[in-house]
């Protein structure tokens, strides 16, 4: 299980990196944390001619809050989220989610943006990005473009990134101080890929749910918001029975994946459970107003 040969490039700046990508073209890949890419190379299901290793580019290691957005550089590793990266509900939410991503040594290397670029349907960060409306900054030699996460993720392991582009940064809008957010993931063992998961967030408007966002991961071929569930909830009072209604609505609306060990029927069943439990977790979450 040794990777096929390739050429390794180790740029020190983004411009050097995108210059390499432009030179290499179709057969090159960006190497960030490598925690998904390197196994694929060892199994010889990925055969890049060249790898552009971005780990030495200092400007990509930053995380900051600018203009009500959390800006996450391309080599910010999962482990950075062990402690809240910002004091609001978003920081707390990301900290609660990061412990579901694989295992500790993987989190020390794997990156937030790498997860988005890999676009595994069961990626927690893809779910976060799709549900909360992340904006992704793609840089190439010809310039920069910003794409919504929903536009970026194009299917299972598929994105709209061009081979010459580097996903340099992800920008997540901060959650409102009154926001409540909850996450639920179902997997067979600790650290496994989710068989199903849901993320729910809403603003608490004097007891009514506003700006409801419900996303599903691991169920369909990509992480995405579920409008059927959101429609049930928007403007309503959060109750357990309403959460169950939302779960059922989501289950009826999804087009679940099927694989060697998991049927579409089972994933549809899980959809309702995940949505219901994520909403319950959101309702139970402390908002900034109550907990400070």
């Amino acid at each position, binding site marked *: 299980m040794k*990777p096929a040969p390739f050429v390794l490039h180790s740029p020190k700046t983004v411009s050097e990196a995108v210059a390499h990508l432009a030179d290499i073209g179709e057969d090159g890949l960006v190497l960030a944390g490598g925690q998904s890419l390197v196994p694929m190379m*060892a199994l010889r299901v990925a055969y890049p001619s060249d790898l552009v290793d971005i780990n030495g580019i200092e400007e990509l290691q930053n995380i900051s809050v600018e203009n009500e957005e959390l800006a996450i550089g391309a080599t910010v590793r999962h482990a950075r989220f062990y402690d809240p990266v910002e004091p609001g509900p978003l920081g707390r939410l990301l900290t609660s989610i990061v412990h579901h991503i694989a295992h500790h*040594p*993987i989190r020390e*290397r794997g990156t937030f943006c790498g997860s988005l670029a890999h676009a595994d349907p069961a990626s927690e960060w893809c779910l976060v990005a799709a549900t909360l409306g992340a904006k992704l900054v793609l840089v190439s030699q010809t310039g920069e473009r910003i794409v919504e996460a929903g536009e970026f993720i194009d299917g299972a392991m598929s994105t709209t990134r061009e081979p010459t582009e580097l996903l340099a940064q992800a920008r997540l809008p901060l959650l409102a101080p009154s926001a409540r957010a909850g996450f639920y993931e179902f997997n067979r063992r600790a650290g496994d890929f989710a068989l199903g998961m849901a993320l729910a967030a809403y603003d608490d408007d004097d007891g009514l749910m506003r700006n409801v966002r419900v996303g599903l991961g691991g169920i369909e071929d990509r992480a995405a918001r579920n409008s059927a569930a959101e429609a049930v909830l928007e403007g309503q009072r959060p109750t357990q029975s309403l959460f169950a209604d939302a779960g059922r609505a989501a289950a009826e609306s999804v087009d679940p994946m099927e694989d060697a060990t998991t049927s579409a029927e089972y994933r549809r069943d899980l959809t309702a459970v995940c949505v219901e439990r994520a909403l319950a977790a959101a309702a139970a979450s402390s908002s900034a107003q109550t907990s400070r």
Partner: protein
Amino acid sequence: MERHPLNLTVNGKPYAVETEFRKTLADTLREDCGLTGTHVGCEHGVCGACTVVVEGKAVRSCLMFAHQAEGMEIETVESLEKEGELHVLQEAFAEHHALQCGFCTPGFLMLVKGAVERGEELSDAELRHLLSSNLCRCTGYQNIIRAVRAAIDTFKEKASAVPEAAR
């Protein structure tokens, strides 16, 4: 089979080697540095047998190419025994029968070394979650959990036993 020069610092010692870009850190430690205590169990990042510490962080050495570790400080299982004395973690593994075939053991030791040396207060669930990173087919984990717990306690005791002036 084009090889490229590479400098690594392993267990405080410099190594100048030449490897292909595609060679993993695990294979390089074993074959080029002669440090065969790091084991390769799955080569796809799941089993954790190859876990080593790079720049203070426990990572899978099968998921890093050696050239990515250029100039970095790497610690392997060979670093734990000091002048014939076992590390508290090694002592605890022996005392609590936390190893059988021993193939996964170096990975477990390097996985938890940091937590032990920091004297981390881990709940049972947190410790199990940390250990769930690595696979063992022999022990059923119970004795590994017991050993790590004991090692954390011993390390804390030893640290607090050092006289104030010596700290």
